[in-house]
């Protein structure tokens, strides 16, 4: 049992990463990775939403009428997303203003619905919670890696603090969304060369 839980927790971080392996949640990972700060808040928000909605759906799983299960899931996910948005608006207003659109779009983030359908509906609450948290974390990890490179090369700063010398000319291409896709591609490349079983024949 413990082995299973450990696997549930660790698998989505690397081996079954939702972005690089399942290729879910690409759109928001392109949009919010210009700065590390925004990426961290987004990562945290997604972790909370995936974790808690998986937990709630798992608690309800035996009572949900099969015909309306997607609608019930959506209600749960949408509620969590609005709660996160409201809390951010109250306690991290400036970040909420930057992320607001994308926070709202967590509702349609395929990772959330994907994990609920694939895991939470058929598993007990605790493993579901862990699965949700871990998938959120796997998503967040990629987000932070991409944001690290984009902020470093695009602005010469990290978390808003200057790390590269003033003489460094910021690379404007890195700020633009296509560069996020290229960095993402590089991460997938690195992962596939380490994990040979992912390579297609």
């Amino acid at each position, binding site marked *: 049992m413990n082995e299973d839980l450990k696997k549930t927790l660790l698998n989505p971080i690397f081996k079954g990463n939702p972005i690089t392996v399942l290729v879910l949640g690409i759109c928001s990972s392109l949009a919010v990775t210009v700065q590390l700060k925004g990426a961290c808040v987004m990562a945290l928000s997604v972790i909370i939403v995936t974790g808690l909605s998986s937990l709630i759906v798992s608690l309800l799983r035996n*009572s*949900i*009428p*099969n*015909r*309306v299960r997607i*609608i019930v899931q959506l*209600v749960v996910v949408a509620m969590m997303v609005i709660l996160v948005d*409201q809390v951010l608006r109250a306690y991290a207003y400036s970040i909420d203003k930057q992320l607001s659109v994308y926070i709202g779009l967590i509702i349609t983030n395929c990772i959330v619905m994907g994990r609920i359908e694939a895991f939470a509906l058929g598993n007990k609450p605790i493993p579901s919670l862990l699965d949700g948290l871990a998938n959120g974390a796997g998503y967040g990890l990629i987000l932070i890696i991409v944001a690290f490179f984009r902020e470093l090369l695009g602005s010469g700063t990290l978390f808003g603090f200057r790390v590269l010398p003033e003489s460094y000319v910021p690379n404007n291409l890195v700020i633009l969304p296509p560069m996020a896709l290229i960095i993402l591609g590089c991460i997938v490349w690195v992962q596939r060369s380490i994990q040979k079983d992912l390579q297609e024949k």
Partner: protein
Amino acid sequence: MNTNSNVYTIVYTTIIVVIAAAILAIAAMALKPKQDANIKAETISQMLAASGLTDMNALSKMGNDQILAKYSENVKAAFLIDAAGNKTGELETAVDDIELQDNLKVENKNIASGDPSLPVYVFEKDGAEINVIPCYGAGLWGPIWGYIAFNADCTEIVGAYFDHASETPGLGAKIKDEAWFREQFVGKTVNFANADQLFRIVKGGAPKDDKSAVDAITGATMTCNGLDAALNTWFKAYMPFLQKKAGAAGIDEAGCCGEGCCGEGCGGDHEHCNGEHNHQHNHQEG
């Protein structure tokens, strides 16, 4: 229990939705005061940024309390005026109880219906008065608004700050993001002589000698048109007040209808003035 029966499905979804709605309503109510405080501090930051007392960079590092304190220290008076430019009420400026007239959407409607209650915030910077007034209008995707700072006699703009709800990043959003855009307003003036076009945001570049026009932003025509309309609407609403200020400072000693009018010989007689200026004259007498 048959979880697939119609009755069960309907009852179940109803209960779920009601519970979710209740949770959200409670959260919204509990967080509202905190959210309102954030919005208030943001509004005040924009005024302070427009007045030139401090810049947005410094303000974004301050907490809400510091921003409110900064406002309270520097504001000399805050009051409401009516359509004729007469003072109708005071706004509290003490730090614990700052009052703002910040529902610009409502006032925008009131301007159209002719009965607005417009705010004027008077700051003091280096011994000189700065009058800050808001503007509000429609951008391309949502509302845009801003604060314009005038010098003591309201003859010259000394600063401006704009914000938007949802303009396109990199295009319309530049009204907020690009410092050069708002810096253009410094040193400009409202063209009282032409009541239909008090201020212009010109596509393709403003004429260099035009004191009441600035360059528009490339690729953001709709946003700039919206801002142009917003500025004209609000400047027009504030015109009696602005002209009174200018008049009181001795610019308009003849008591006539403003710059470009019929000069000293006018003596307050309407017929001598150009027709289009008559209404300005009436305001000044009132």
